[in-house]
């Protein structure tokens, strides 16, 4: 059956061949299958329960209310029970087992499952059930409800591949299929893989080079240790946790206004970076407030169960949403820590698991005692219910980070100030030199030639380039440029400059420069006698700068923009060179951006930031217990308005036994049980999630469901081994990550081999290295990092980088706030700090499967759509990153285009391009460069995407062409995939 899907994508002749193979395979399977069933023993949990669960439990399962014919098939004991002269299952006797009679019945009306359920058993499944009955119908509890025991390692003496225990399990399974593992991945692939996995950022070229040249035995391990120590490790791990805990920056329902929960996010990052043991991580988040002498940080941690949406709609009944909130806590807690879908038993006993509706309300009672109103109202209320005012746990680190930047900047400023003759050249933006600005026009008027006249250096003094401009006038004369587009934009503390040469034989009485800005020629500076009667003395419209410069030499004229009334942000579209009499040469005019003042400006803002961090004492929602405790009443059908008289005390589902407490059990008792030895699930569920991060799929594929409807583990023994190892290590998360990434399994090459697509396309046996697309946040962070834009400050309030205009306005309530984009550093922070509005989640993340965060999400889908392709092509984030990446390449490598392209490729992918790849890039580059040379204004337009300034020293058509190539590289499959 299954082999029908084995048709490999490929040219038609291959398909034909595969079809032949498939047919052969089908034939051979038909031959070998029965024999196989006979020789292998059937395992109830692995083989039978999933079939019964899928097809039968709905009507013959744990839910007593919907149970038909009083028959339950979720319990082997019940199956064997005497039902009045007959039993569903008679061990060793398929013929007398009614279950088999009914599933094999020839009449469609009698045959189970009934037609209307849409379920049908295959003959293989019927054979399996038959064999199981034949073999004695042994039953076990569902596997995940049995506590894990550390399995024996299957040591193969001939095994030279394994690096640690993980590999022995993987290898054993592969060998069952006569398969062998893949070779180790290339070093540059491996370092990119592990760096992205552990920090969510790509490795730098230096890091790659260091690893490539390190021949020591511990080279890889050293990289892993370095990454686990990186503060970005905590950020990367927190990313997953934000989905799990439905973190957002807004309340979610109705008005969906803002809230403050980022200090909880800081706590998560901090806890991961501390390598807080997972049991403690869990206990603090579920019940930190109930710990003896709870620290503030432990109370902040309980924000985990306050990240749920909160209502704000005027007409709602608070109790309805309070109940929803408690249910949300149950569902989230059960999914995240137990891998159980407990929400199913809110309205009825679970159809598939041994969890009753009463069990549900027992669990519910733990979370039903928070003094909250479950409503934040129409206004700008940031919190509801219990809160704590506390500094972020990351405050000292943030402060240290900012202070370190202050120290560095101060050093730089002081070094700059000690270099009086430091070369100003790199900071100049030249506007007029041998040619006039983009799309401007020029004229000359008054006395002298009636045009803007360039003269060449053969006959005339020239300061820069090949030409200068010349005017000889009697009285007032000038030449000027106007209507420049783009305009010359002034930064903070800009100085306008120009070089001038006064003819010793015919010096002028006065020289003047005038600038056109804001629709007026009212910005003037002059030297010499005050003869030109424009503007008003001692104002920006006629500012005396000093005496005439010496004749017969080039002199640099400089005018601080604010002296002539041009503040930062002013745009100049015209520049006039005016003189009263004489012969004057003008050359190289432009603006000087003073790096010192830019640094000074940054310094000021950093100092302010440090003050802000120090003063910050945010208020954040946390858990607390109401006294006296709220009674939990069994709600009929789970409806808020149908309470019954039945009071339910906090407690565990009966299948897990009883909580032993002196008093009424509370969240702390629950949390301790979760981290205790009697809980079969949490360690498995947790290592499975860590595993998924590195392999793309869990050992149990259904991360959120370890119940009978969940998927059977691909490597059950490995899962149990890891779970035991994890607990015995003291729930050491970093060690577990290290164990996984140090395995040979993890380090394999991810190339598909000849039969990958037919044998194991999902790579569940791990016969090759894991290969999957990066998550939305990492795709963006990678682009920021490669381009050098990333501001890698850890923690703090959320930021609002670019998003298309009007998205909030389309949907929000009339008087609710609209999106306001941030500027500066906030545009370039890591994506986990991006402001998350639940009704309008970040659209570029959504295109890459980010959830809305309205409910706990453990598995994002991993789609491949045109919408995602459009983001990579056109989102200003990626276009700007392409430009900065291009600048980086042009600045790092001199002249040689080929070298530059190869360098670009290596930055992005971490490896050298092949010859063919190089050729493709060169061809595209030449083509695109010609395009931009023929259309320089298009190149200039492209430079304007994004708010980061363009490096003025770079030639714009070249930069535009490299930007385009970078854009192409940032969207390749390889770039957005970890190979």
């Amino acid at each position, binding site marked *: 059956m*299954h082999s029908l899907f*084995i*048709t490999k*994508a490929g*040219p038609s002749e291959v*398909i034909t061949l595969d079809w032949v193979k498939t047919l052969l*395979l089908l034939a051979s399977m038909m031959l*070998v299958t029965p024999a*196989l069933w006979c020789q*292998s023993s059937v395992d109830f949990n*692995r083989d039978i329960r*999933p079939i019964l669960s899928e097809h039968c439990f709905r009507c013959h399962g744990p839910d007593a209310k919907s149970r038909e014919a009083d028959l339950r098939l979720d319990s082997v004991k019940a199956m064997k029970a005497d039902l009045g002269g007959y039993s569903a299952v008679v061990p060793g006797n398929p013929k007398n087992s009614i279950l088999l009679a009914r599933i094999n019945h020839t009449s469609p009306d009698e045959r189970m499952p009934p037609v209307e359920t849409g379920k049908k058993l295959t003959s293989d499944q019927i054979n399996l059930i038959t064999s199981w009955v034949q073999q004695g119908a042994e039953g076990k509890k569902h596997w995940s409800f049995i506590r894990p025991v550390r399995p024996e390692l299957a040591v193969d003496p001939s095994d030279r591949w394994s690096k640690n225990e993980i590999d022995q399990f993987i290898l054993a399974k592969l060998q069952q299929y006569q398969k062998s593992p893949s070779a180790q991945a290339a070093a540059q692939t491996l370092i990119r893989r592990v760096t992205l996995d552990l920090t969510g950022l790509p490795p730098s070229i230096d890091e790659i080079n260091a690893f490539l040249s390190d021949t020591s035995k511990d080279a890889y391990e050293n990289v892993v240790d370095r990454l686990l120590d990186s503060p970005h490790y905590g950020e990367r791990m927190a990313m997953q946790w934000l989905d799990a805990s439905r973190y957002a920056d807004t309340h979610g329902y*109705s008005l969906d206004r803002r809230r403050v929960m980022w200090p909880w996010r800081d706590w998560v990052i901090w806890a991961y970076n501390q390598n807080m043991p997972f049991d403690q991580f869990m206990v603090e988040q579920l019940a930190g407030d109930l710990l003896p002498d709870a620290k503030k940080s432990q109370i902040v941690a309980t924000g985990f169960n306050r990240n749920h949406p909160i*209502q704000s709609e*005027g*007409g709602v009944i608070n109790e309805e949403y309070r109940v929803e909130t408690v249910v949300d806590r149950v569902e989230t807690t059960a999914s995240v820590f137990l891998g159980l*879908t407990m929400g199913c038993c809110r309205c009825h006993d679970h159809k598939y698991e041994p969890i009753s509706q009463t069990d549900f309300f027992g669990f519910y009672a733990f979370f039903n005692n928070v003094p909250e109103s479950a409503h934040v109202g129409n206004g700008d209320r940031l919190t509801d219910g219990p809160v704590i005012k506390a500094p972020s746990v990351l405050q000292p680190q943030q402060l240290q980070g900012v202070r370190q930047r202050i120290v560095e900047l101060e050093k730089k400023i002081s070094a700059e100030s000690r270099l009086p003759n430091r070369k100003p050249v790199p900071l100049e933006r030249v506007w007029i030199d041998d040619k006039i600005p983009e799309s401007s026009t020029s004229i000359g008027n008054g006395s002298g030639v009636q045009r803007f006249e360039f003269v060449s250096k053969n006959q005339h003094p020239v300061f820069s380039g090949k030409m200068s401009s010349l005017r000889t006038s009697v009285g007032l004369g000038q030449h000027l440029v106007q209507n420049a587009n783009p305009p010359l934009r002034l930064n903070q503390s800009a100085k306008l400059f120009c070089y001038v040469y006064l003819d010793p034989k015919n010096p002028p009485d006065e020289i003047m420069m005038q600038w056109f800005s804001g629709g007026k020629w009212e910005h003037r500076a002059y030297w010499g006698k005050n003869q030109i009667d424009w503007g008003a003395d001692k104002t920006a419209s006629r500012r005396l700068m000093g005496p005439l410069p010496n004749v017969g030499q080039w002199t640099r004229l400089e005018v601080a923009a604010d002296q002539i009334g041009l503040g930062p942000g002013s745009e100049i579209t015209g520049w006039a060179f005016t003189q009263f009499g004489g012969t004057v040469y003008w050359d190289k005019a432009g603006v000087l951006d003073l790096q010192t003042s830019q640094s000074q400006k940054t310094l000021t803002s950093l100092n302010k930031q440090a003050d802000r961090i120090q003063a910050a004492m945010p208020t954040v929602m946390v858990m607390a217990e109401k006294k006296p405790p709220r009674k939990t009443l069994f709600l009929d059908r789970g409806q808020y308005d149908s309470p019954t008289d039945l009071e339910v005390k906090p407690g565990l589902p009966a299948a897990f036994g009883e909580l032993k407490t002196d008093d009424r059990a509370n969240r702390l008792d629950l949390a301790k049980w979760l981290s205790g030895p009697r809980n079969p699930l949490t360690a498995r569920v947790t290592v499975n999630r860590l595993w998924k991060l590195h392999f793309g799929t869990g050992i149990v594929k259904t991360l959120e469901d370890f*119940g009978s409807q*969940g998927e*059977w583990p691909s490597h*059950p023994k490995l899962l149990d081994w890891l779970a035991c190892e994890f607990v015995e290590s003291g729930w050491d998360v970093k060690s577990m990550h290290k164990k996984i990434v140090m395995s040979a399994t993890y380090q394999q090459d991810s190339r598909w081999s000849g039969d990958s*697509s037919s*044998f194991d396309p*999902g790579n*569940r046996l791990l016969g090759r290295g894991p290969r999957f697309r990066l998550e939305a946040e990492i795709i963006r962070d990678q682009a920021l990092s490669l381009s050098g834009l990333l501001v890698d400050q850890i923690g703090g309030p959320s930021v609002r980088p670019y998003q298309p205009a*009007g998205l909030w306005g389309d*949907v929000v309530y*009339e008087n609710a706030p609209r999106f306001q984009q941030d500027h500066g550093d906030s545009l370039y922070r890591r994506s986990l700090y991006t402001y998350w509005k*639940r*009704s309008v989640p970040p659209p570029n993340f*959504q295109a890459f499967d980010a959830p*809305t965060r*309205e409910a706990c999400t453990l598995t994002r*889908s991993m*789609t*491949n*759509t*045109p*919408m*995602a*392709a*459009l983001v990579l*092509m*056109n989102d200003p984030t990626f276009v700007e990153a392409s430009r900065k990446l291009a600048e980086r390449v042009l600045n790092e490598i001199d002249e040689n285009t080929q070298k530059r392209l190869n360098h670009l490729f290596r930055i992005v992918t971490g490896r050298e391009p*092949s010859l063919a*790849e190089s050729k*493709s890039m060169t061809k595209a580059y030449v*083509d695109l460069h010609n*395009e931009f040379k023929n259309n320089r204004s*298009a*190149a*200039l337009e*492209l*430079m304007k*995407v994004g708010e980061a300034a363009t490096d003025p020293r770079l030639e714009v058509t070249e930069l535009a062409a490299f930007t385009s190539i970078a854009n*192409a*590289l940032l969207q*390749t*499959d390889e770039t957005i*995939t970890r190979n």
Partner: protein
Amino acid sequence: MTPNAITTADDLSLMPTRRQLLGKASTGIGSIALASILNKGAGATRANDTTPSISSSISPFPNFAPKAKRVIYLFQSGAPSQYELLDHKPILAEQHGQSLPGSFFQGQRQTGMTAGQKNKQVCKSIFRFSRNGQAGAEISELLPHLAKVSDDICIVRSVQTDAINHDPAITFFQTGFQQPGRPSLGAWVSYGLGSDNANLPGFVVMISQGSAKRDSQALYARLWGSGFVPSAHQGVKFRANGDPVLYLNNPAGISTKRRRKILDLTQALNQQHYRDVGDPETLTRIRQAELAYRMQMAVPGLVDTRDEPEHTFDLYGESAKRPGTYAANCLLARRLAERGVRFIQLYHRGWDQHGDLPRDLPLQCQDVDQASAALISDLKQRGMLDETLVIWGGEFGRTVYAQGNLNLKKYGRDHHPRCFSIWMAGGGIKAGHTHGKTDEYGFNVAESPVPVHDLHATILHCLGINHEQLTYKFQGRDYRLTDVHGHVIENILA
């Protein structure tokens, strides 16, 4: 592949699902979906395409011959008043101003806005009704254009919902569940049937702002979200401002020609990478990038309605020339329908008249009446109405009593979930028919109730889908749009 590879049940998970082979999760489960989202040879011209051919036999949907190929859902967000528009209650004029006794409400929950209002006075409609068309449909004077096409529509007066507040109610209407987390109606349909157009998404969403601005309730991404079905099925917003589809337009300085050159490089590198690594996902990536490029080509022409003849604008109204209006969106809906988009979801905001109904309801009706009717006529004259299901309505109804003091110049009505009116037309729906009755006060359904789940079951039925069979397994359970409910309303089927 060794013949004994498959030995135990746990190996089932090793087998590729169709979706894995054909580009993970980007596809619907219908054959059309597979063929079209993967683009019938989309990348074929450039990328040595190896799209596997799909036999139609593996597709479960449609289950039976569909009446409608597509849906245009004209959602009126905020809940238009049935008393002033589609459900004429003459007794209200007689009893206008009478206080309703508490017993009248039969325990019906009321919103927090009027639960505490002691004097609840019957309020008549200040707008007149007339009988229209051969079928004599009763329609308010606020909807004169709709009245003219009344023989083409089916008014359903007996819709019921479980929710009484906007957020849960609209979430229920659009996802079948009051709480967030479920796939939207359009996502279910996209998942089940896929798209009929290789260059356009299968599920498109457009939003317009009502003229009664202050009464605009919020909308949420979840309303067109994919919930737990693959996110490729979430609605794609078409917008009047900025890029018509998010991130569609090339940045300044990148012309179509340059974009093509850039993309050619990306694709050449992708091809080389595929040859090196061999993961079919790379091929899917190549196809999706080509589809993105083709959308860049196709969408601007689609949303630019200047090629429409003047009589189109005579039909839809002048405001159809202004991008982003409800009328413009209706016209776009027709253009999307022509191009085979499966589910077209409009939202018009501003219908929450708790007060100032006499001023604001006519404004809202002016926004939508002509264009909604025009859409019906337009589809009909193009022969498309039979295959297009059109639905018009809000998330609940409004109360028989006035909110606050009764004042005919400024009255308004609170939320009422027990019965309200919508209309449907086209693909599979009985034309010139009024379904269901409410009691004389319009408080309860008197005949033929239509709960939201039944409406959903009926919509899916028109598309040829058995609502009980359109399932998605999540957290161990087979989820349905209709949960464990839903009956097809046979009496409104043509």
